[in-house]
């Protein structure tokens, strides 16, 4: 890239418009020519920005194009004042410059570690307890170099003989460091290199560069003493351009922030808009820059951002361009008399700050030096050109301390007599209180915070008391529900939500014979809840406990379960359930019953090699009783029995006690017969023959065939029962029974689908009921069907 050698003459070019093109065209390649032309219009703005603004706003809005098109068009547009493409290019240049962290959209879902966040905040609150203040010095310098390259020694500016010790931090800002088109349009920053080298040479090896950041002509470099390097963290920079549509980088600001030990420091170097009349513009520039510069908040986990004011120490330096609105000769007169006080009274920046219109909360050290602008470059004379610009304190250094931070100590505020530019460099030195962590104290406080959090967390967990962890139901009888109550009491400080939960890898909460109510609930502190536990063993569940095939010992009568009562965010309570099932002839299989010679209650195992009974002895006892005592009873099997009496009958059956020991109505015995048949684990006509039976029901012969295929015990029971029913019907005159009534009653218990089968629907449909009844009815009316 060709340099434009004569940028230092830009202003005179403008003043003397004829020379403009000549000087630029003399520089180099054709493409540069092109950009040069545009540069003239846009960057000459040091004093003539409005020219640029106007000429650009004459053009239509920028459009987005590919770089190739852009170049091509630039060639075509050669010699045109300012083109869309120029703006576009400068936009690109800025984008390139402003490449920085993209801030995440805060509305996106993200996991936020709130605990860590909370601890970090708490720690910050107690910072003073684990840090000590140490005075450190910071040197800030600002110089508008007017596009000049380094030519003089920087010692008079950067080496402050009044400081006994070397500054701990150097922050050096330049403006108009680079007035070339490349800087403005392409983001070229090579011009800064010789300056940075020059600074490093001046600082002589005791310092390391932290970061430098450039926005076109605005450069900010921060250096720290080597020994401090390990105590620096979170170094970030950002830039903000102001001016034409907020994107022409010839005016704007560059900021660098970092943590210095435990103190956060932000330094901002800006070049605000020029001209005596542009006070409000400058005020706005300052506000725009402060608003647009952002950093990532590294101490938070939620990617929030912070701005320049979120720092313990903020320094704002630069060519702020505020002027002294007095006649030129009057100003010069006062300068001669060193009457800076009266000049300062009317200084625009001073006025604006006093009015609260800009740099709110900022402070500036007292000025005791002559205005730093505008000199004839290379001389000690104020502007002698036709324009005779009134001298002004354009170049300033301000600071602002965070509320809690201690004030800074001013060591010096002065200008240095370097003459190569039309501005004089300015510098200020301060002592600032730096918070230095005392590691032991910090650890202690961190632990205190964490402990406090743990304690709060543990204390805020729900706690409850349960009346017992063991619920013994003792003896549980068939078909006789037993309930027990648990009292669950909230003894904690917070609402307790509870819920019974299944054991690992299980889906059911408890055994099928147990009912829990309620399964879940909540209690406010001190509240009690009664939890009902009910055991009820019915036909479906009794099979689990009764005599069964493979159990050689018959200890399976014990009913055990463990319930897990879970408190949300807290403990689990185990509740052991125990009980002993009283065995009964109900709810067994026919096969087991005929192999069991003892009273069921004897609780003995099924004897091996036991000769089978032809039918269960209990069935025989029931039918035998009815046969001798109730055949003529009116409403036999129609009227219902008495529950209590049926329980007694069941006890007699299970203990082999004679029925004579108890009293009951015949209807209780009749219903016992039906209930007994109903309770069989598998009905007399087995599950696997259910469908066949329905199919056979239309033909007596098919029914006969079906029954002949029953397993022998089932056949025996069927035969015995049907014979008994036929006998019952022979007493029709007395008992008034109808065959179809009996058929319906007994078909429902003799013939039922497996509870797991799809066929088992309740209530069954009418055709199925009819088919079942038909099957039994055939046997009741054709007496020779069974033989």
């Amino acid at each position, binding site marked *: 890239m060709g340099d434009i050698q004569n940028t230092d003459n830009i202003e005179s070019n403008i003043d003397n418009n004829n020379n403009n093109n000549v000087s630029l065209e003399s520089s180099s390649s054709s493409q540069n020519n092109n950009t040069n032309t545009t540069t003239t219009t846009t960057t000459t703005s040091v004093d003539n920005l409005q020219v640029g603004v106007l000429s650009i706003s004459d053009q239509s809005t920028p459009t987005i194009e590919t770089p190739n098109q852009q170049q091509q068009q630039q060639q075509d547009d050669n010699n045109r004042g300012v083109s869309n493409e120029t703006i576009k290019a400068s936009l690109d240049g800025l984008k390139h410059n402003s490449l920085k*962290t*993209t*801030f*995440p959209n805060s509305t996106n879902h*993200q*996991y936020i*570690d709130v*605990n*860590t966040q909370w*601890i*970090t905040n708490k*720690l910050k609150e107690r910072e003073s307890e684990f840090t000590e203040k140490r005075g450190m010095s910071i040197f800030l310098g600002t110089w508008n170099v007017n596009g000049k390259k380094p030519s003089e020694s920087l010692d008079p500016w950067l080496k402050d003989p009044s400081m006994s010790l070397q500054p701990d931090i150097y922050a050096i800002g330049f403006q108009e460091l680079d007035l070339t088109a490349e800087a403005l349009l392409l983001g070229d920053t090579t011009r800064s290199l010789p300056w940075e080298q020059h600074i490093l040479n001046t600082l002589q090896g005791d310092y390391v560069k932290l970061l430098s950041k450039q926005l076109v002509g605005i450069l900010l470099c921060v250096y720290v003493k080597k020994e401090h390097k390990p105590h620096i*963290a979170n170094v970030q920079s950002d830039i903000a351009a102001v001016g034409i549509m907020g994107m022409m980088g010839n005016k704007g600001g560059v900021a660098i922030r970092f943590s210095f030990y435990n103190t956060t420091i932000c330094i901002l170097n800006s070049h605000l808009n020029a001209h005596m009349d542009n006070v409000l513009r400058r005020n706005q520039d300052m506000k725009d820059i402060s608003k647009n510069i952002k950093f*990532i908040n590294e101490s938070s*986990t939620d*990617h929030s951002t912070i701005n320049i004011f979120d720092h313990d120490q903020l320094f704002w330096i630069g060519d702020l361009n505020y002027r002294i609105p007095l006649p030129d000769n009057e100003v010069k007169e006062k300068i001669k008399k060193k009457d800076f006080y009266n000049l300062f009274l009317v200084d625009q920046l001073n006025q604006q700050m006093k009015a609260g219109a800009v740099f709110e909360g900022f402070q500036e050290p007292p000025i005791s030096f002559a205005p730093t602008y505008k000199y004839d470059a290379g001389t000690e004379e104020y502007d002698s050109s036709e324009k005779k610009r009134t001298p002004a304190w354009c170049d300033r250094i301000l600071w602002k301390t965070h509320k809690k931070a201690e004030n800074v100590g001013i060591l010096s505020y002065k200008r240095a007599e370097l003459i190569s530019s039309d501005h004089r460099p300015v510098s200020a030195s301060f002592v600032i209180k730096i918070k230095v*962590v005392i590691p032991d104290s*910090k*650890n202690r406080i*961190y*632990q205190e915070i*964490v*402990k406090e*959090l*743990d304690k709060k*967390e*543990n204390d805020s*967990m729900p706690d409850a008391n349960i009346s017992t*962890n063991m619920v013994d139901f003792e003896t549980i009888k068939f078909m006789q529900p037993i309930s027990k109550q648990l009292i669950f009491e909230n003894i904690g400080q917070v609402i307790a939500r509870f*819920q019974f*939960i299944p*054991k*690992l890898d299980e889906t059911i909460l408890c055994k099928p014979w147990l009912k829990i109510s309620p399964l879940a609930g909540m209690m406010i502190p001190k509240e009690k809840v009664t939890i009902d536990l009910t055991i009820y063993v019915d036909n479906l569940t009794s099979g689990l406990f009764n005599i069964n095939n493979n159990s050689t010992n018959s200890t399976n009568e014990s009913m055990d379960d*463990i319930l*897990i*009562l*879970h408190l*949300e*965010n*807290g*403990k*689990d*309570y*185990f509740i*052991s359930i125990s009980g002993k099932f009283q065995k009964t002839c109900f709810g067994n299989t026919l096969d087991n019953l005929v192999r069991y010679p003892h009273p069921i209650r004897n609780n003995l195992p099924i004897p091996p090699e036991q000769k089978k009974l032809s039918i269960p002895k209990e069935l025989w006892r029931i039918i035998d009783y009815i046969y001798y005592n109730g055949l003529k009873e009116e409403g036999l099997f129609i009227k219902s029995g008495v529950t209590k009496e049926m329980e007694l009958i069941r006890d007699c059956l299970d203990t082999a006690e004679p029925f004579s020991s108890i009293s009951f109505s015949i209807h209780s015995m009749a219903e016992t017969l039906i209930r007994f048949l109903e309770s069989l684990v598998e009905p007399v006509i087995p599950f696997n023959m259910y469908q066949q039976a329905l199919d056979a029901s239309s033909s007596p012969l098919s029914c006969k065939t079906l029954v002949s295929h029953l397993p022998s015990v089932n056949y025996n029971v069927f035969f015995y029962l049907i014979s008994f029913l036929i006998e019952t019907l022979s007493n029709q005159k007395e008992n008034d029974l109808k065959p179809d009534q009996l058929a319906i009653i007994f078909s429902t218990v003799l013939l039922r689908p497996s509870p797991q089968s799809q066929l088992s629907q309740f209530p069954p449909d009418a055709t199925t009921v009819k088919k079942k009844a038909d099957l039994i009815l055939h046997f009741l009316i054709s007496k020779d069907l069974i033989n």
Partner: protein
Amino acid sequence: MNNNNKIFQFKLVLLGEAAVGKSSLVLRFVRGHFLDYQESTIGAAFLAQTVCLNDTTVKFEIWDTAGQERYHTLAPMYYRGAQAAIVVYDIRSEDSFERAIKWVKELQRQGSPNIVIALAGNKLDLAAKRKVETAEAQQYAEENGLLFMETSAKTSQNVNELFVEIAKKLPKTPTTRPGSGRVAIAPIDNGNTGKKNKCCN
């Protein structure tokens, strides 16, 4: 650098025969006190406690379990998904030491693959009635890659140390996330859903 960095969260379960001092150890560690008549745990209790190491912070979600044999089948609910376990025995009881060894084996077989197991011989204050020799337990622990410490919940000897050693040994991978063992139906491992979000670049 400062140590207020990430907090690593781990689920820790205490196992061991009833009355060896599991609950007492937790109580000593978390609340700093000791009860002569510690109510026996019938269920599982949850407490949280954080350990600050030099460079990291480890937060334990502690599940104290019931030691009674009748609840043995429920133990996997609590050790499943646990990254650390303390298996406790009473130095006065060989049976409790045998039981501890069984727990260690069960954990090695069915616990999380990289579970950090610590063996704790508790009631060190009653060393006069010691039945399990330190060397014996020490050797077993070494052979099985366990941390080992003799502790006293009563005098607090080695209690913090025990948890600190575990905290040190736990891997601080960036994927260790504050996954709570206490969501809804808590003890069932919830597979640590949320993902660690790395800083935007």
